[in-house]
């Protein structure tokens, strides 16, 4: 037996019931779990940012730029897991050069580029333009040169121009909200439109993906805001934190309701695939679905945050609860993606059996690569916070 097939022979011994012979090799692994996870964090963080800008929720001001930079850091990495899992990564550009118009996946490239180039980069640039010009005059060395490049040669700081920056920025955020919805709803559609797979094929999939994206993005900004403030040894803005947690609570209710609706609908209709899906959730997915996603990732944060809406303990307790809830939600949504992507491939399309998924350490689908794609956005965010610190900007704009 050649070593390259060893894991497949191991899989073959794990098969229960009957699966089509070609199904032994599970096609989408951990990297494809990360792809909707990371994209969701981007969409969620952006939507939180736009609450402040468009809906004028002023209390969220301290997290506005942080949320935008977080969205950018994760967006830059979002396609990496997808590209690195391809059989031919160097042919990936073909998706943009010769996209196939009927393919859900083909259009994602354009949605992604639209979001990155038109929405996020432009919005951040316009928001920081005045500061970049000022910083480019005050800073020397490498950083100063970077600022000079980032001004793109526009150094006009007249009140009229700055006002225009703000107006265009506002307009872009308004365009950005449907774009963020599109970005992640679209990722949901990539799965939801696969009619061959009854675990994926539901019209609710894009909506569920969207709301779970908002949940995870808000939790991420909450987490990063607390960590960054702690690093800077600054006092946390409790009003902002309470508001973010409130939004997290509301969206979590919506998300849980939608997912519940989807499951109730499946159970009540009990179509051809019902038996195998029932075996799936009570068997191979039990731990990741009922314990990780629903109990730890949804119910505990929901109850904790719900209690805080009625009763406000002292600040430190609240901070600890918020911090734990953000981590639990991030953990839970990761396993929501896991349950969709991996869960949808564990049962055979013959509905007569199951295969297994063994996470490998090395290799392009392995844990190590996945960790790279999880850690990289945090490093990028670190760099962005060094280059475009929101707190310096705040001081200047208030002075």
């Amino acid at each position: 037996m050649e070593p390259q097939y060893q894991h497949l022979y191991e899989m073959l011994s794990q098969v229960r019931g009957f699966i089509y012979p070609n199904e032994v090799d599970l096609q989408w692994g951990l990297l494809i779990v990360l792809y909707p996870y990371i994209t969701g964090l981007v969409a969620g963080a952006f939507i939180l940012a736009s609450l402040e800008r468009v809906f004028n929720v002023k209390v969220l001001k301290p997290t506005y730029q942080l949320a935008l930079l977080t969205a950018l850091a994760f967006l830059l990495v979002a396609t990496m897991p997808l590209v690195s899992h391809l059989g031919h990564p160097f042919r990936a550009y073909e998706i943009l050069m010769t996209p196939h118009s009927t393919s859900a996946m083909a259009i994602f490239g354009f949605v992604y580029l639209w979001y990155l180039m038109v929405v996020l980069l432009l919005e951040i640039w316009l928001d920081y333009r005045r500061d970049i010009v000022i910083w480019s005059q005050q800073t020397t060395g490498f950083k100063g040169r970077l600022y000079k490049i980032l001004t793109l040669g526009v150094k006009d700081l007249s009140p009229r121009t700055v006002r225009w920056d703000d107006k265009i920025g506002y307009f872009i955020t308004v365009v950005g909200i449907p774009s963020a919805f599109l970005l992640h709803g679209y990722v949901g559609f990539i799965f939801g439109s696969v009619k061959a797979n009854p675990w994926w094929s539901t019209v609710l999939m894009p909506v569920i993906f969207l709301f779970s994206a908002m949940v995870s993005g808000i939790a991420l900004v909450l987490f990063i805001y607390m960590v960054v403030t702690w690093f800077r040894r600054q006092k946390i803005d409790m009003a902002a934190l309470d508001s973010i947690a409130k939004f997290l609570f509301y969206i979590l209710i919506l998300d849980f309701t939608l997912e519940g609706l989807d499951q109730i609908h499946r159970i009540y209709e009990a179509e051809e695939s019902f038996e195998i899906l029932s075996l799936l959730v009570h068997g191979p997915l039990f731990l990741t679905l009922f314990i990780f996603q629903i109990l730890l990732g949804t119910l505990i944060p929901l109850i904790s945050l719900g209690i805080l809406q009625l009763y406000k303990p002292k600040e430190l307790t609240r901070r600890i609860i918020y911090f734990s809830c953000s981590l639990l939600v991030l953990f839970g949504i990761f396993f929501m993606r896991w349950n969709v992507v991996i869960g949808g491939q564990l049962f055979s399309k013959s509905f007569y059996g199951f295969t297994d998924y063994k996470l490998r350490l090395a290799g392009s689908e392995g844990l190590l690569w996945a960790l790279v794609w999880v850690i990289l956005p945090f490093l990028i965010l670190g760099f962005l916070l060094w280059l475009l610190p929101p707190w310096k900007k705040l001081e200047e704009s208030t002075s």
Partner: protein
Amino acid sequence: MATKGIEESRRNFIRKAAAAGGLLATGLLNPFNAILYAVEKPTDPTKHWWGFGIDIEKCIGCGRCANACKEENNVPREPFYFRNWVEQYTIKNDGSVKVESPNGGIDGFVQTVPKEDIFKAFFVPKMCNHCYKSPCVQACPVGATYETPDGVVLVDETYCIGCRYCVQACPYGCRYIHPEKNTVDKCTLCYHRISKGKTTACVEVCPTQARIFGDLNDKNGELVKFLKEHTCLVLKPHLNTGSKLYYNGLNGEVR
């Protein structure tokens, strides 16, 4: 005025009744049968429109088709890659269904269920359904998977990026990622042979003529004759894939 109103509503009623009756009559004239799955295409009925028939009642489960396919098309020999395979269905007296396909049936089958417990047992050869509304062609992000004008679903391996979306989109499990090429691979209906007027490798070796390769546009051809003389069904018809792989003797248990 009133009479006019009544007359008008009567006229409307007759018009509607005629339309409904017309629909009903069309329905009776064109009863819904298996061949309807292939009548929408192609636009040019003078050209080939390849399809495939499998007679489950004739299949003996020898697995020679699956083996011949691997030989002819250089399919990796490991038991995870099949363009063509055979499944053994055993329906027991208690109603439970046992399905097996060890090494795709290439090494033959051993019936493990005691004879007295068997209600029904049969073999189902499987391969690409060469759907004309195929979900894999729809899903491919770069158009590397395409349908030829004569109705065969093929893959351009110099173009495939290996994203595996088509593998997910195929409801029949007919695609795999070639372990050396890292691109998707599937049944080509032996395109290199049929375009030279030969038949497919699997048809050639079948000892019981359980496999019928043919042109759906050739109204006097073997495949159309097979469809005429048998009650044929396609797999998973509710998915509306436009499958052109027709089975005679297909049980409801087969998926």
